[in-house]
């Protein structure tokens, strides 16, 4: 099935490591990451580009890796969930916040949520609750109802985590 007509050589940097592989023209980036490189942390939750489980950072920007072809990543630099605390290392502040706030249940949305949240905090280190919710709109979680994920992002931003809820309460 490796037809040279439809196969291309791509070179990508993922989590600081360089990979050069032949990929099929039609191969999705997310399948390349998972099936070819066996980086299993990035997940797939849909086939319409609206769940965000596959979110990775491409040159620092959050992208849904199911909405990109592997060939489009040629020459680019990617970060996946595996980069957040490399093997053996402790959880990063953001990951720790997810643990503290119980923002993880099944863990399927989690890698995408973390990457989206990381990008947000890099852009806006002190986002308000509405910004957090709007930013996470493209990342579906079926387990947590989002409340604790919002709290986790607030904790990672050094905010009072009850602020969001109280803000609602004042509405």
């Amino acid at each position, binding site marked *: 099935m490796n037809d040279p007509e439809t196969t291309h050589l791509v070179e990508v940097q993922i989590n600081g490591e360089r990979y050069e592989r032949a990929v099929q023209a039609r191969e999705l980036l997310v399948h390349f990451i998972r099936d070819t490189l066996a980086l299993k942390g990035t997940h797939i939750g849909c086939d*319409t580009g609206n*769940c965000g489980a596959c979110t990775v950072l491409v040159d620092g920007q959050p992208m849904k890796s199911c909405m990109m072809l592997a060939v489009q990543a040629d020459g680019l630099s990617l970060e996946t969930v595996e980069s957040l605390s490399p093997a053996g290392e402790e959880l990063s502040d953001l990951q720790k916040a997810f*643990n503290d706030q119980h923002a993880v249940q*099944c*863990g*399927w949305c*989690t890698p995408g949520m973390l990457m989206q949240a990381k990008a947000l905090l890099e852009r806006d280190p002190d986002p308000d609750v509405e910004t957090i919710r709007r930013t996470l709109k493209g990342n579906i979680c079926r387990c947590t109802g989002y409340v604790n994920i919002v709290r986790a992002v607030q904790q990672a931003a050094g905010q009072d985590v009850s602020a969001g809820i109280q803000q609602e309460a004042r509405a």
Partner: protein
Amino acid sequence: MSVQDAAAPTKAASTIGTPVRRVEDKRLLQGQGTFSDDVWMKRMGYVHFVRSPHAHARIGDIDVARAEAMEGVYATLTGAEVEAMTEPFMQIAPEPGSRMEDYALAVGKVRFVGEPVVAVLAETRALARDAAEAVEVEYELLEAVVDSLATLSPTAPVLHETIGKNIGYQDTYAWGDIDWALEHADHVVSIDKLHFHRFSSTPLECNAAVVNWDRGTDVIEVRSNNQMPQFAAMFISPAIGMPTSKLHFVSQDIGGAFGLKITSYPTIAACMLLSRKAGRPVKWTEYRSEAVTASAHGNERTFTDIKVPVMADGTILGFDVKAYDDAGAFMRYEPLGGVIWSQVAPGCYRLKHLRVEYTQVLTNKCPCGPNRGYSRLQHLWMIERIVDIVAHELGFDPVELRKKNYPQADEYPYETPNGCFYDSGDLPRMLDLGLELADYDGWRTRQAELKESGGGKRIGIGIGSTLDSGTNNFGQARLVNEHLPFSGNGEAAHVKLDLYGEIAVNLGSSPQGQGHETTAAQTVGEILGVAPTDIHVKAGYDTASHAYVGFSGTYASQFAVTGLGAAIGAAEKLRDEIRLVAATALGATPDEIELADGVAGVRGDEERAIPFIGIANLVYTNVAALPPEVADAVSLNCRYVYRPPFEIPDIETKTGELTLTYAAQIHVAVVEIDEETGHTEILKYVAIDECGRRINPQIVEGQVHGAAAHGIGAALHESFVYDEESGQLLSGNFYDYHAATAVDVPLLLTGEIECPSPRSPNGAKGMGEGGGAPLSTLCAAFQDALGAGGAVVTDTHNPSERVWRLLRERSDAPRPVEVVSR
């Protein structure tokens, strides 16, 4: 047996009731979980299913030649082959539903859009998909029926010729004397029709499995995310003619399930056949659109001819109703839902006279699976609508009417008319707490002001009260089919001291995000006197190494009772063995030994102690040093099966203890409706939960959030709508289905009260499913906004468009509600 009893022989500070951080999080946060699709095997092929594009058709010729000729295609499997190789899956239903023939692939006919017809195995995902495209299937189109009531018409097309009509199960459940009540009540409120729509909690991970038949041992290994592997094994084994001992199910991490991953067994069976045929491991990863179209949906239910007798003081006596539950094209877990609703027969109320004529219909739609809140949420929603409509029609205050009809705190355990026991609770107190947290009075004032000032917005305030019955007595299966040899329930756990004194636990459950590793560690740790972090609870589930019973698994809100009940029993056994060995080694009696921080010592004598590693040494590698009677009495491998104290229910009267525990939910919502567009904004959402003793309050709160989000999403957005003519699913992918996002779910406030269960081993109640409270709550809020004499909310699903229509209902339109007073 209780955790408190263990306090004497152990000293560690208890973590029960504290928010211990989840131990499973680290791997999940680092991308190091192992889910089914994370398993790759050598020589593995990928399966793709050719699925029916039609809702109802006869299958003609199937031509797989072109697909099989493609380079890299390993094998194909057709319905005809499946029919030759297997028996139809067993059916739970009695006659005539039992005559349904359900196979791993469609045989003879297709009965819903997306039904798997042919399986193709190939070297890559993409190639399998290409090859599936090359399979040619001839169909002879048949008329389809998707409406739950139209399917009962004598002229409706019949789905299953062996049954001869579109009814899978039918029975009447009656307790008390509803005819007497309707005759003697001061008012009778009649409601024409209520409709509970079809939706699903759509776990974010789709179904998946890596299935490998080992030719040498004839064992089939299944690394899947099926959430009730024993149930799957019991269905698959007789169908494919393999002993259950050779069906080796393994799961580690599962990306959510919500009941919907119970009925994945037909597809897993297809993968088994394909693996055997091709002599290769088979990977199946469902695409989301396949999951949405053809995995499992939640049950739709239509209630008609509802009659409610009410006394002048607001006492509601009961109800009479016809319920039409729509199972879709195949029964699978059904008709268990045909009795499971009766675990909460009178809902949250002291209703005495009940009659439900229950019919499970078959239509050309996706089969159902037991979706979160299964079968009870439909029934509970109907009751909440009844109470709410009664309040509006007869002019009672919806708060006071509820409080009047709830069982009062001193009435627990409260016996329902069908012999179930609501074990503990205090609904009036929960409601008060909910109203207080929601600032109910403040919102009533705001609502009145807004009414004065106009401005195109309306506020509605709604209350929903529901129950989450947990730990099923499977004896209730006999109420739908008296020949089913099912009763009771159970769960197993295994706790051992490993070679160097480490504590290892394995569970019979196959969790999907509920934090079992954490709560089991808390539970076992307390009994053995060590911190939860020093206990290794094995991740996931494996039939080759884990203890299990026939009802093992994670479903039906039971782990806190059955799973932890088993863990308590096994840990206590191990504790007693450790004490016996320590007493022998230290020249003391077992009751003088206490366990703390991994050491067994004589109470009050710090000098005489032996660490767990020493205990393990004596039993495993130094056994001749023990007196034979002690060596023979211990294994340090302790298996325990927790068995809830159930009896077989009475089939004649349909009464008995059907579930052990009853968690309760009271939700309060404030919505603001834009009169011009019908757009709804949730201004305030409060969820009060009561689930007995909380092992880990943070995990409990997480479940409350998740269940609330599912209900809110379903109430406002999510719906499976089928085209009446073609039987096509109109919301057939995740985009159209619109699973609730972070902007759709409000940042809800939670509150709780704790009424420990007198029935469970640890005072806990199963929880997590919730009772679908948001569906009731939001309907009540819409009803409140519409006001007395306005349109009546009769559907669970109220997106902007339906709200807009309700607001515009003409005052002379025929009302679906009638009140007769005497």
